[in-house]
């Protein structure tokens, strides 16, 4: 247990490639947490892992012992979090677990969009921020210009920014000294009842569920009985320890300290990021503020391409869900796709991460159906249903009104791209709430329907701003609008997996765009294929895939037989990634790509 005044907890905010990992390595090396040899073997590995984890949303942490110029030895805890809007809540919890941040900026590149969103998170969390200019040894480095930019754009004092080269190690000692002298020590009461924040948790093959905690008040010891305040579940603590950077057991964790515990918790689902952990016997009166249970906001169907793989998919989803509390699932049956699951995600990135893991780690080819949000459908009989799947839409004559979720979106963008961003938001039925400038950057705030955002908004935003915009949103409630269910018919048969909810005024344009997209995505067949969009029984858009007229190898003699046979085998494999609807083969990626709009 370390005295509060000798603890510093911090995170590093940086744009990708600005040197966060290299600086972290240097800090570990300089404080002697690892020997030269271990550096190569351990840290680099864990950095690789972290890159993998960048998508699994896990916080990384390391505890460093540093003897400062004042002769005192300090404990420095670094928490490293990836930042993406889907996981904004998780990132904000990690930020709440520390008191300060290093803002690392490439002295030749300057502040980038990604940095902004994260640094505002840090400011929101009340952090003291130490600007660090990296790559100062590069000929293109312009420290003065970049300092000015930090002051203009972010609005913090950069006059005493630390100038370093993480690569050569130049100035890294000054970073350590700045952490000690400029970042505040944590506050806390050792004698108060235990109050600890659950920062993150993950499944470890040997230890079971490992929980990363920040102690606010009180003391946590091995053998203590603890209670999770949101779930009310209680556990006996098996192990406590710190990451230095490998797991080291400790006797106790006191106020201001960051470490881990294990407690025979069976599933990661049983642990909620941001929850407050206290003692069962002597609980604290109030939980920490800001806890939110994970709330999936985007839903879609996941179906195996090969219906024989359904049981494999079930077991893969169950395994994945054990380690990801924010992901929900329930069985779904589709007339077109057979058995599958309706799954809920934090956002589109989260959806893609889960889908990719299912395909990669469990080797299952998947069809992903159109993502949907939760609509509140009020029926004429006065009841309301939560609609997760357009296929479940009640008969329109029984529907009184439909409400959809709205968000408040905050977008930071260099002013040269502002026009494109405004147009994008207008096109997505946005209502402008605010427009202000910070330096040469504009901050726009829009009220947008979530369903216009969940799908490809972030991709479009990145593309129209060449990656220079940052984006954040929060749900602000439900509002009625003129929404209808649009169906897609392929070769005169409705494909339920392509049904979507759309705004009536945008239905024609949307239907046309989907039909055009499907025309590109579905290969030509030996017969012509009509593709139609319909609302109720009314066709609102139509395209036709013309019949294939010629597809034959002109020359095929004795030397070509092997090659032709192997090509046919490859095509067999390719066909497995298609799904047959009546007579038409639809490639699995068509279900999701049909929705991508190039507006």
């Amino acid at each position: 247990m370390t005295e509060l005044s000798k603890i510093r907890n911090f995170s590093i905010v940086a744009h990708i490639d600005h040197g966060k990992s290299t600086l972290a390595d240097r800090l570990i090396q300089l404080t002697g947490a690892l020997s030269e040899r271990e550096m190569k073997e351990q840290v680099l590995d864990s950095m690789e892992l972290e890159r993998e984890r960048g998508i699994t949303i896990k916080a990384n942490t390391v505890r460093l012992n540093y003897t400062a110029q004042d002769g005192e030895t300090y404990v420095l805890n670094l928490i490293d979090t990836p930042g993406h809007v889907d996981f904004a809540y998780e990132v904000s919890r990690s930020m709440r677990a520390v008191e300060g941040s290093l803002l690392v900026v490439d002295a030749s590149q300057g502040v980038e969009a990604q940095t902004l969103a994260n640094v505002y998170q840090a400011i929101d969390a009340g952090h003291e921020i130490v600007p660090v200019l990296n790559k100062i040894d590069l000929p293109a480095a312009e420290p003065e210009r970049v300092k000015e930019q930090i002051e203009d754009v972010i609005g913090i004092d950069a006059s005493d920014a630390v100038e370093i080269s993480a690569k050569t190690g130049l100035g890294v000692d000054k970073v350590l000294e700045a952490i000690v002298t400029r970042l505040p020590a944590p506050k806390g009461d050792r004698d108060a009842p235990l109050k600890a924040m659950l920062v993150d948790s993950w499944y470890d093959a040997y230890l079971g569920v490992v929980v990363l905690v920040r102690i606010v008040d009180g003391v946590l010891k091995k053998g203590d009985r603890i209670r999770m305040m949101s779930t009310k579940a209680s556990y006996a603590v098996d192990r406590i320890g710190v990451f230095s950077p490998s797991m080291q057991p400790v006797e106790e964790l006191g106020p201001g300290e960051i470490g881990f515990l294990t407690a025979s918790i069976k599933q990661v689902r049983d642990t909620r990021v941001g929850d407050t952990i206290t003692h069962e016997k002597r609980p604290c009166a109030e939980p920490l503020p800001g806890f939110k249970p994970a709330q999936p906001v985007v839903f879609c169907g996941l179906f195996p391409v090969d219906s024989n793989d359904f049981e494999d998919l079930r077991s893969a989803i169950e395994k994945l869900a054990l380690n990801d509390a924010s992901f929900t699932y329930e069985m779904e049956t589709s007339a077109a796709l057979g058995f599958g699951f309706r799954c809920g995600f934090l956002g589109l990135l989260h959806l893609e991460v889960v889908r990719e893991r299912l395909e990669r780690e469990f080797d299952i080819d998947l069809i992903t159906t159109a993502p949907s949000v939760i609509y509140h459908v009020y029926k004429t009989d006065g009841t309301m249903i939560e609609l997760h799947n357009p296929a479940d839409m009640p008969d329109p004559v029984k529907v009184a009104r439909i409400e959809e979720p709205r968000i408040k979106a905050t977008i930071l963008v260099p002013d040269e791209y502002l026009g494109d961003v405004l147009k994008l938001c207008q096109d997505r039925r946005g209502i402008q709430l605010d427009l202000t400038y910070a330096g040469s950057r504009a901050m726009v705030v829009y009220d947008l329907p979530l369903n216009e955002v969940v799908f490809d908004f972030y991709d479009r935003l990145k593309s129209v701003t060449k990656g220079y915009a940052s984006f954040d949103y929060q749900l602000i409630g439900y509002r009625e609008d003129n929404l209808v269910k649009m169906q897609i018919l392929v070769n005169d048969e409705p494909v339920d997996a392509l049904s979507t909810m759309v705004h009536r005024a945008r239905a024609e344009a949307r239907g046309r765009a989907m039909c055009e997209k499907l025309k590109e995505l579905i290969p030509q067949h030996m017969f012509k294929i009509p593709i139609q969009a319909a609302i109720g029984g009314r066709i609102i858009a139509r395209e036709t895939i013309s019949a294939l007229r010629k597809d034959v190898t002109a020359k095929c003699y004795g030397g070509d037989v092997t090659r032709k046979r192997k090509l046919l085998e490859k095509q067999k494999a390719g066909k497995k990634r298609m799904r047959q609807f009546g007579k038409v083969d639809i490639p699995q990626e068509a279900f999701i790509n049909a929705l991508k709009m190039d507006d």
Partner: protein
Amino acid sequence: MPPEPFAIRPGDAPPAARPAPRPSAPEGAPDPDRNRATAPAPDPGATEDWRAGGFGIYVHWPFCKSKCPYCDFNSHVSAHVDHDAWRQALIADLEAAARLTPGRRARTMFFGGGTPSLMPPATVAALIDAVERLWGFEPGAEITLEANPTSVEAAAFRGYAAAGVNRVSMGVQALNDADLRALGRTHGAAEAMAAFDVARAVFRRVSFDLIYARQNQTPQAWEAELRRALDLAADHLSLYQLTIEPGTRFAQLHARGRLRGLPADDDAARMYELTQELCEAAGMPAYEISNHARPGDESRHNLIYWRYGDYVGAGPGAHGRLTVEGRRLATENLRAPGAWLEAMRAGRPAASFEEIAPEDQAAEYLLMSLRLAEGTDPARHARLGGRPFDPERVARLVEQGVLTWRAERLAATRKGRALLDAALRELVA
């Protein structure tokens, strides 16, 4: 079953006899030396299946005066060719194949390339003599040589005829000078016609090739050209739609968007249909996707490929199919001419041999035989080890007018021949 590659040198004993001679197992019986546990035992009748297609000899002459931009064949431009060395090496290659296939007669022999009309007639004569000595020809055997239609090469035609060649196939490709230049051909249209006249005077059987769906070619232009070609034609025509093959100059240009004026798919399809109509009307229907002949004058050598017979591939990069002691082998020679020649001279392995699994043989038979108007014999396909066709899929393809039953054979219709690759995917993928 994983293919089992092994290499053989000219002069080696047949592979089945190595390392020690042993009595050959009854046909189709489990072979204790090979891991056949997972492969279905081939039908005893299938082991001599090649007889349904016949047996022929292919000789590859890899040299050209220049490389054409559409050509992905194994061809090379070389100023100096050591003709003695090449003759000896090709004969050695034939001898090695003959040791694997005793007791057969050759129905056909085919000199392809490259440009085999650059071969000295004496080399051609020596190779024909070698086949006669090693196997013997069937009565009325067909011996074809591919020729460029230039005056120089035409001068050698009598020498080839004296050597035993009785059919030539000429790479005319187009009937006007501008298009010939675009195709990288060194001959002009008038020169080609003169060479064609010489060939007609020397050989009864003369075929020529044309390429259509060329840059800036309209269906009308192709129709006029094809009418002229049919007026000229002797007994056989090969009419190929221009295909951009990977690794060619055209492919490079195409990738950079610099191969302009290629006909749209609909126009290309129209040209194919025109080809069928005009050739049928002229009494030269398609007997294969791109090949037209007066009945009885089909290329008997190429029919061996399409009917999935056995064939020897001699020369660099040549492929063969040889049934050896009941096992069907795919043979492939070293592709680079220099490497192949060196290996042959030094007595090193110059070929790879791979056994073709029964279901793969069935697939090869299917994809080749469906190219023919006569189509596929489902019973033979099944005997080879093919899964029976899904009756539902066949019915659908028949209903769509792509396939048809002719007697007991499944064949592509005229419409279906244009869609054969798609039809094959439908049928078996």
